[in-house]
């Protein structure tokens, strides 16, 4: 029976839409996997020596153990938002004469192969190997490694429960908040005792049995949970939440684009996929920290600051905007046959992006800490985003014809939407243009001249808004039939 399941899985994998793409994309994807995998392995291997150098008086493994709690919380969070549960696929299996238990074991087993379970071993395996070569006791290291793998698996199963049960979700959320608050107010640092526990795991290798027991326990809990709810309206169903219509009539002041804006707000707040993207664009806000904390960039490569500033305020623009017509792919036929001029539709998307840039700019105020220059360049970058990047993004969207399933979370590495050569070409000017606009006046005149040039380019873009929108509308009109056909294809 398991063999049949595996063959089904294989077919699902082989025939998934992201494998039906061109050879070039396959190669690119493969290279990306190699690249990130390679980085992880390298970091894992180099971690030992790096830690030793920075904290010579502390044993690297103690250091790692102390910080593991953060890693665990981080992984839990990432999984909660990103990991797609495989539950929906078992519907067709329910009426076939297969024992329920087999199906559930299979289902849970499948989650063990999730991409997310391979992140921590990618780091930890090389680290452990280095430890062995450094002459650390073999039994301790190996059992420590297995203990951590058990913990990863525990997170895997815990995430399943969190996703399915509100009680567990709120329980964990409260716990995390308490831990962070205690640490923040210097009342109690939970990392220390937890670090001790992990160090204990290392020093007393037989304790590795405890995480193993936790995995088994969580597996059982999951099993029982699904077993109890193994009905169409139980654990395998999507939760149907009761909803209340939201009143967004205050947005009517935006005139003819108001209906679309209201709709977009609802689309973002009520669907899994756009929520995920908005969350990601929030992380873009912190992108500047990479650059502004390092003297190298400020003193030797200031043109890169222009680049960084685009990301800080442009997170939403870049991640949401590049998929613009796709967000409406599920009901694109309606939009195309209803009483809607294309122009209004595009304009509303433009407003949405401008609004997001402004919000991001307000949120970026703390960057003042790095000085007025930095803050001004973020402001100039925001203007560029509003005045030019919005239009480039909308233009690029015309070439994007990948339908999106709104209420399904994107799976890691299957998210190749917008991942085609034209899309890449379109993405280039968004990032390189600000560097050029900033760098040339900066190089020949001064820092302030660069700032002004960047800000001015954005203002000019805004002045020519109607011209740009008209041009973009023409491009959309031209590709209309192709877009409709592509969006109505089954994924």
């Amino acid at each position, binding site marked *: 029976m398991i063999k049949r399941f595996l063959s089904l899985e294989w077919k699902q994998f082989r025939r998934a839409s992201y494998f039906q793409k061109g050879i070039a994309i396959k190669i690119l994807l493969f290279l990306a996997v190699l690249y990130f995998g390679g980085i992880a392995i390298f970091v894992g291997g180099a971690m030992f020596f790096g830690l030793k150098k920075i904290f010579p008086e502390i044993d690297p493994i103690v250091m790692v153990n102390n910080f593991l709690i953060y890693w665990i919380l981080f992984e839990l969070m990432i999984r909660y938002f990103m990991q797609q549960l495989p539950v929906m696929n078992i519907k067709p299996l329910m009426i076939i004469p297969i024992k329920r238990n087999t199906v559930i074991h299979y289902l849970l087993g499948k989650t063990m192969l999730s991409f997310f379970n391979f992140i921590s071993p990618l780091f930890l395996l090389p680290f452990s190997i280095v430890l062995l070569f450094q002459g650390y006791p073999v039994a301790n290291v190996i059992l420590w490694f297995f203990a951590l793998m058990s913990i990863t698996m525990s997170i895997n199963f815990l995430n399943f429960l969190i996703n399915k049960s509100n009680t567990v979700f709120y329980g964990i959320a409260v716990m995390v908040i308490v831990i962070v608050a205690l640490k923040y107010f210097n009342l109690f640092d939970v990392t220390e005792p937890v670090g001790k526990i992990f160090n204990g795991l290392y020093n007393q290798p037989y304790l590795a049995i405890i995480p193993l027991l936790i995995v088994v326990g969580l597996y059982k809990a999951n099993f029982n949970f699904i077993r109890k709810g193994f009905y169409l309206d139980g654990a395998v169903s999507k939760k149907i939440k009761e*909803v209340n219509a939201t009143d967004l009539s205050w947005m009517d002041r935006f005139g003819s684009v108001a*209906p679309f804006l*209201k709709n977009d707000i609802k689309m973002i707040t009520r669907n899994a996929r756009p929520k995920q993207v908005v969350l990601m664009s929030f992380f873009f806000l912190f992108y500047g920290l990479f650059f502004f904390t390092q003297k190298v960039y400020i003193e030797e490569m200031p043109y890169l600051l222009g680049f960084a500033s685009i990301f800080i305020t442009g997170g939403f623009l870049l991640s949401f905007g590049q998929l613009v017509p796709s967000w409406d792919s*599920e*009901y694109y*036929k309606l939009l195309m*046959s209803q009483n*809607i001029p294309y122009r209004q539709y595009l304009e509303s998307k433009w407003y949405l992006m401008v609004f997001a840039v402004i919000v991001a700019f307000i949120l970026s105020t703390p960057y003042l800490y790095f000085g007025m220059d930095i803050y001004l360049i973020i402001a100039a970058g925001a203007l560029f985003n509003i005045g030019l990047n919005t239009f480039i993004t909308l233009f690029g969207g015309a070439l994007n014809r990948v339908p999106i399933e*709104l209420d399904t979370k994107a799976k890691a590495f299957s998210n190749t939407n917008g991942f085609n050569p034209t899309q890449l070409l379109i993405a280039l000017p968004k990032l390189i243009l600000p560097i050029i606009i900033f760098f040339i006046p900066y190089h020949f005149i001064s820092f302030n001249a660069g700032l002004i040039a960047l800000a001015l380019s954005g203002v000019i873009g805004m002045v020519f808004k109607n011209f740009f929108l008209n041009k973009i509308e023409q491009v959309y009109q031209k590709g209309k*039939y192709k877009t409709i056909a592509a969006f109505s294809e089954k994924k």
Partner: protein
Amino acid sequence: MIITSNLSKKYNGVSVLHIQNLEIPKGQSFGLVGNNGAGKTTYFSLLLDLIQPTTGYIKNNNVLVHESEDWKPFTSSFIDESFLIGYLTSEEYFYFIGELRGQNKADVDALVSQFEDFFHGEILGQKKYLRDLSKGNQKKAGIVAALIGNPEVIILDEPFANLDPTTQIRLKGIIKDLAEKQGVTVLVSSHDLMHVTDVCERIVVLEKGEVIKDLATNAATLKELEAHFAGSEMV
């Protein structure tokens, strides 16, 4: 009202629709029947400019459909679920369509309240997103949304499918009323011969993309249609 001339659609050289000449006058209730693949949905998609004609054109109230967008204000349609916005509640969806067609909330409420009978208490005030409604209830919402904003042309693809018997009968009443009393041109396709003959003044039979029968409905029409489809089944 709607003039179709020398219209054809080919996919990779295979013709899926070819209509030499078809005129639908204003206020007619027009029924389109045919087996799967006969070209019904293709014709409706061409009418809504969702696909491009290979040759020929459709004129909707003297507007060339594939060249101008001016037919949109007086034409409305419900073809399939992709005409619904899944993350809205029924009310929000009606208001959205209303806003697009220049109707305020009160207008929409007034119109929708006429159909409480038709909704059978399963559409309004449900606190559910459209995507969580059953297929039949989704269809009810979609059909009523197509009536918002006093359209002059209404296009409904398979409106009877998935509906329960009570609702089917009520829908027939609605369609008849639209064409007879309000002068709306209604285009309906269906697999249910009985329903179309009940509802439509004129019935066109499509087969492999060609018009092979064009009948003014009378007492004998149902028999004739049944004989026709029974015959083509035996071949």
